[in-house]
């Protein structure tokens, strides 16, 4: 049952994307580690980490697309699930520092010693074990999404109202995580990480491995999303997007349909956050900033919502542009981003990938029409050759 469910996910574009991601996961670390720094094909470590970060953003955009592009739920709080996954990973990394912190306390992270705390808060227990932290990376965002979605979807909160309360959710978390007595490092967040699974987090090898892990995880989530979207459940998702009350009068429990997609999406966002934190070396409440969630919407719109490849392309394009733009004209980036969103909405409503896909489909249809019009003897030729 599971295999047939997953097998369905492979169509040509997904297969190509997965092949590219797996190829990158092997090639980039190899070019970074096995070539000399002066070799023309050498990929410097800072680029490995930069692109690793883009891949985690791409995963976040993919997660958003699953609910926004396919089910019409415009979540403006997806960065919150990303940040929660990131915090879970950050807590693990903090516990790995052990006695190597500035205060040399074997159990308490530096900020707790600084705040004069005597013992570890209960919710920090277990985060010294990687498997536990990894579990929390998906469970915490998943649980928040489930509870939040349960109330929102059951009360039939829709459209712009839902978007507003997701913004409120991420803003509330921002304020909460800023407080020192929340126990998550307050304003400064969690940083100064030393190692992950016993490997030095600054080492080239670890950075390359984190890049590979991000690429492979993105490939895996792409396969999973594709399988979901192509199943009958995926068709119901689109049905809810297009005509919610029709779906309900056909006998579908729309709130359950939405809740499942929202929870899976939040879990994916959490995984993205967990891969992001070791690559950038810090997680702080700024990640809950409402603007961050809106940026994710822009990446997805630019790439093409309702296509699975679109958000990945969009996240990498926009963030690549951001890296170049902010270095050249730092003060104009936000104008460029806003302008981009307006232009895409006006001229490329299906995004880059959606528009390209529509163009290709049109060309294929034209070619088919031409082939049909061809004289019989010409069309029959290939058959005769056989």
């Amino acid at each position, binding site marked *: 049952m599971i295999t*047939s469910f997953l097998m369905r996910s492979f169509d040509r574009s997904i297969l190509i994307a997965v092949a590219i991601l797996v190829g990158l996961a092997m090639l980039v670390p190899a070019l970074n580690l096995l070539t000399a720094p002066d070799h023309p094909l050498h990929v410097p470590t800072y680029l490995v980490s930069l692109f690793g970060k883009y891949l985690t953003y791409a995963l976040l955009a993919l997660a958003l697309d699953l609910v926004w592009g396919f089910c019409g739920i415009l979540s403006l709080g997806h960065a919150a699930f990303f940040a929660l996954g990131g915090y879970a990973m950050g807590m693990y990394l903090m516990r790995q520092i052990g006695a190597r912190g500035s205060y040399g306390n074997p159990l308490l992270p530096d900020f707790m010693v600084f705040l004069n705390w005597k013992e570890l808060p209960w919710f920090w227990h277990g985060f010294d074990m990687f498997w536990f932290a990894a579990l929390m990376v998906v469970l915490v965002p998943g649980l928040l999404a489930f509870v939040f979605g349960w109330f929102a979807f059951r009360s039939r909160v829709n459209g712009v109202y839902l978007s507003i309360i997701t913004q409120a959710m991420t803003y509330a978390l921002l304020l909460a995580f800023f407080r020192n007595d929340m126990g998550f490092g307050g304003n400064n967040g969690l940083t100064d990480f030393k190692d992950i699974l016993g490997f030095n987090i600054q080492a080239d090898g670890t950075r390359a491995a984190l890049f590979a892990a991000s690429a492979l995880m993105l490939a895996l989530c792409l396969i999973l999303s594709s399988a979901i979207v192509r199943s*009958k459940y995926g*068709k119901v998702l689109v049905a809810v997007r297009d005509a919610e009350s029709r779906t309900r009068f*056909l006998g579908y*429990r729309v709130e359950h349909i939405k809740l499942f997609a929202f929870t899976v999406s939040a879990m994916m966002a959490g995984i993205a956050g967990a891969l992001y934190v070791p690559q950038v070396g810090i997680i702080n409440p700024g990640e809950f900033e409402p603007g961050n969630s809106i940026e994710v919407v822009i990446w997805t719109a630019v790439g093409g919502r309702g296509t699975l490849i679109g958000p990945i392309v969009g996240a990498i394009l926009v963030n690549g542009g951001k890296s170049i733009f902010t270095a050249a004209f730092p003060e104009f980036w936000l104008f460029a981003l806003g302008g981009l969103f307006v232009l895409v909405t006006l001229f490329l409503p299906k995004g880059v990938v959606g528009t390209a896909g529509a163009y290709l489909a049109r060309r294929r249809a034209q070619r088919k029409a031409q082939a049909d019009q061809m004289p019989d003897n010409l069309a029959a030729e290939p058959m005769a050759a056989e």
Partner: protein
Amino acid sequence: MNQTIGQTRPTSLLYLDGVSVSFDGFKALNALSFVIEPGELRAIIGPNGAGKTTMMDIITGKTRPDEGQVFFKGEIDLTKKDEAEIASLGIGRKFQKPTVFESHTVWDNLELALNRKRGVFPTLFYRLTAEDRARIEEILVTIRMSSRRDDLAANLSHGQKQWLEIGMLLAQEPELLLVDEPVAGMTDAETAETAILLKEIARTRSVVVVEHDMGFIRELGVKVTCLAEGAVLAEGSIDFVSSDPKVIENYLGR
């Protein structure tokens, strides 16, 4: 009247007794009572604001009545259930404006409507069986759309969308079909075809049709209920109802 209606409840398919509902002081339904028998095709007419759509909202669980009883098959209390539950009990509803899933193909629209398990996991692992395939083919023939199975619903004409929606209701295998203005905006030829289609459907299940088009109702040739101001004004054959002075004054005369 309530007493005679009360006796019919055990054998009825749909039973409404003294149903009232008001919105902001406006009484949309005012002690509405009527009964639909199993296998019956019934037409409902009435002026705008007579409560026809509100009545459908109440039967399908979208609106809760302030008072009154609504029973399906004599014993299932519909006022306690929501839309999805009522739909799976076997009551299908067609909206006034044709509502189909525009970005799905005609085939997928029917597949989604098919009367199968509708939970998250059954749909996630659903595979199209030969039996389901045959059922969809059969419905495509009934609604005369076999040749358009792979077209997106968005590319259908208005009349075809209406038929697709009726086909989706058939796929749902309801015992009772509520159809709201099925021929609004249709050409005369399409209207005649729709009348044939509905009569065909009514052979195996009960159908309630709300319509303004008197010619269409005459074509159906069934028992008619005329509503006005949220209550039943007259009930009987089309000739009986249309000669009723109250109906002429309230509805036809205008």
